[in-house]
């Protein structure tokens, strides 16, 4: 115990006395860790934004549907009022409820949209005007007019390219034709209340939002919906909550299926996984460079410490203690660097990019990828797990790197070490 305290004191003094060497070694770790923290939080931010943009246009982080709806996409596969009540009850779960950002009931159907100029096939989505904007943010993509409002009845919010194709202007009439659950074809009139642009051609050419109540009355499904789409506060909660909700709704499994965004949008999932992998490769390379810089710095300093080790040994420290001394030095340096590195990383990332990392210069205002419109301004995301991961891996590299000097310190040839060094 006594000796241990001595070693720690010696190590502290060595670190302090050899300020420049310590600073250089620490700098390698600090800068490496800071860069790692910065690039990972930017990558995570970009990622989550991408997923969110994708699921907003799709069926959310989580979706409830009749089990057959995804495959058949037929209106008869809808959730009844009782099913909806069961879903609402499951979502009221105390673990899940605080993480809900939006819950949007929707009735989706393929229809023919006719205007005086032409008739084209479209996708009509009946939405709850009060709840939908928080989910799909369509109210932020308005080209002309406005989004649906709670008391709307015969209003339709139409993709801008579809409106052009049918030569529709605000207030113009549009007849939607589709078959209800019983197969009977029925018509519904709506008037264009607004047009939108998502920048995804398939969506802008074929999507129409109408009030949910209008859609339900038109198709004769009472208060039925085809999908209840849920947006969470963060995408990484989706898998966990999906399992939890599947358990909670197990008694209704024959009528209600719970889908996570991964199952609902396999394309987006694959793209995100691919991007993840790209990130792994990149961070792997970055990490190797960081490790190499640390190891190199530490090894380099060992080359010049032969004499120093000789002196310590001459003063009576045993081999084991010498090794312990070098390791302790490494530990102290790594600890300090780790802390400073993480803080620096956070500070720099936040300082520079808290308003988002703006890629606008590269690609204009927005772009689409995997069917998601991405605002090319990435807000960095900090996750404790990720910070600890970065810090621990850098610390391990630092410690492993100081094993070699420790080992070397025990192998010193005293006479050689104490010779006057040229």
């Amino acid at each position, binding site marked *: 115990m006594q000796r241990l305290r001595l070693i720690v004191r010696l190590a502290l003094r060595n670190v302090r006395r050899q300020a420049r060497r310590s600073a250089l070694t620490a700098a390698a770790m600090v800068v490496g860790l800071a860069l790692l923290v910065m690039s990972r939080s930017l990558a995570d931010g970009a990622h989550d934004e991408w997923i969110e943009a994708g699921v907003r246009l799709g069926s959310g982080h989580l979706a409830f549907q009749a089990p057959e709806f995804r495959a058949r996409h037929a209106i008869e596969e809808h959730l009844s009022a009782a099913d909806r009540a069961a879903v609402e009850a499951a979502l009221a779960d105390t673990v899940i409820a605080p993480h809900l950002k939006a819950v949007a009931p929707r009735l989706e159907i*393929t*229809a*023919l949209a*006719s*205007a*005086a*100029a*032409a*008739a*084209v*096939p479209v996708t009509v989505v009946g939405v709850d005007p009060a709840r939908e904007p928080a989910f799909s943010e369509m109210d932020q993509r308005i080209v002309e007019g406005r989004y649906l409002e709670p008391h709307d009845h*015969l209003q339709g919010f139409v993709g801008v390219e579809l409106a052009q194709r049918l*030569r529709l*202007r605000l*207030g*113009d*009439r*549009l*007849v*939607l*034709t*589709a*078959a209800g659950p019983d197969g*009977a*074809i029925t*018509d*519904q*009139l709506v008037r264009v209340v607004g047009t939108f642009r998502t920048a995804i051609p398939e969506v802008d050419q074929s999507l129409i939002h109408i009030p949910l109540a209008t859609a339900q009355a038109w198709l004769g499904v009472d208060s039925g919906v085809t999908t209840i789409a849920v947006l969470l506060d963060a995408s990484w909660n989706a898998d966990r909550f999906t399992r939890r909700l599947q358990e909670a709704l197990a008694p209704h499994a024959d009528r209600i299926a719970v889908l996570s965004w991964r199952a609902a949008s396999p394309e987006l999932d694959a793209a995100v996984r691919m991007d993840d992998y790209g990130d792994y490769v990149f961070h792997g390379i970055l990490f190797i460079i960081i490790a190499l810089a640390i190891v190199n710095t530490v090894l380099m300093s060992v080359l010049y410490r032969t004499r120093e080790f000789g002196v310590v040994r001459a003063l009576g420290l045993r081999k084991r203690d010498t090794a312990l001394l070098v390791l302790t030095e490494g530990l102290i340096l790594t600890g300090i660097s780790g802390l400073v590195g993480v803080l620096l990383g956070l500070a720099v990332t936040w300082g520079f990019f808290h308003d988002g990392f703006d890629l606008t210069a590269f690609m204009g205002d927005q772009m689409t990828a995997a069917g998601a419109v991405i605002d090319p301004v990435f807000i960095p995301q900090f996750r404790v797990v990720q910070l600890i991961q970065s810090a621990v891996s850098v610390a391990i590299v630092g410690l492993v790197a100081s094993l070699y000097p420790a080992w070397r310190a025990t192998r010193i040839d005293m006479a050689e070490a104490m010779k006057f060094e040229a």
Partner: protein
Amino acid sequence: MRHLCIAVLLALASPLHAQRTAREIVDHVDRLLRGNSSRGEITMEVVTAHWQRSMTLAVWSLGTEYALIRIDAPPKDAGTATLKSGTEIWNYLPRVDRVIKLPSSLMGQAWMGSHFTNDDLVKESRIIEDYEIAIGFDGMRDGVRVWEFVLTPKPEAAVIWGRITEEVRQDDMMPTWARYYDERGDLVREITFSEYQRMGGRLVPAVMTVVPTDKPNERTVIRYVRLAFDVGLEPSFFSLRRLRSGAE
């Protein structure tokens, strides 16, 4: 005193009366060529910028619910038939001997290359339910006393037109033209009627010409060669078997 009473009553009743009359007339014109049930022979001439062709058609109809149309000429298309049953459309293709149900998303396509869409065939004619009908003109035009009716869709009616105007001759209740406008008041297509003849015991316009306004050089001309009304068809007549067998 009694005369005065009647005069007042008439005065009070007249707008209502005129309205009912307008509705009745438009309804009458709408039913002119259909009757309760009908059987007809038609030639259809279609002229587009790229081709023109003429077809001979045999037509059976029952109310607005059922119709069966068979192409008899030209030989290339002979036997091709379309069955409308309620809101569904089926086509029989003799060349491949198959019956195909048209998916609802393709109702917007032209029927047999004409200026009518499949949707035009399917849409039940509910003119008097879907439109407010007013008299826009009542007087002499080109020496003939006519009404011009203005049909405005009711607020919730599921129809695509912004307005329809129709001219009807007052003395024989024959339509002369109908014009279809979009919401902005731009003319989209015009149907003109001509060659009024007695057929199947009724006076009817034997020729109907459809011109899409954005392509003034194109037209579809429908000419009734023969027409018989109330021929006693049953709904069971309009079956897929009948579609296949060519309706004879």
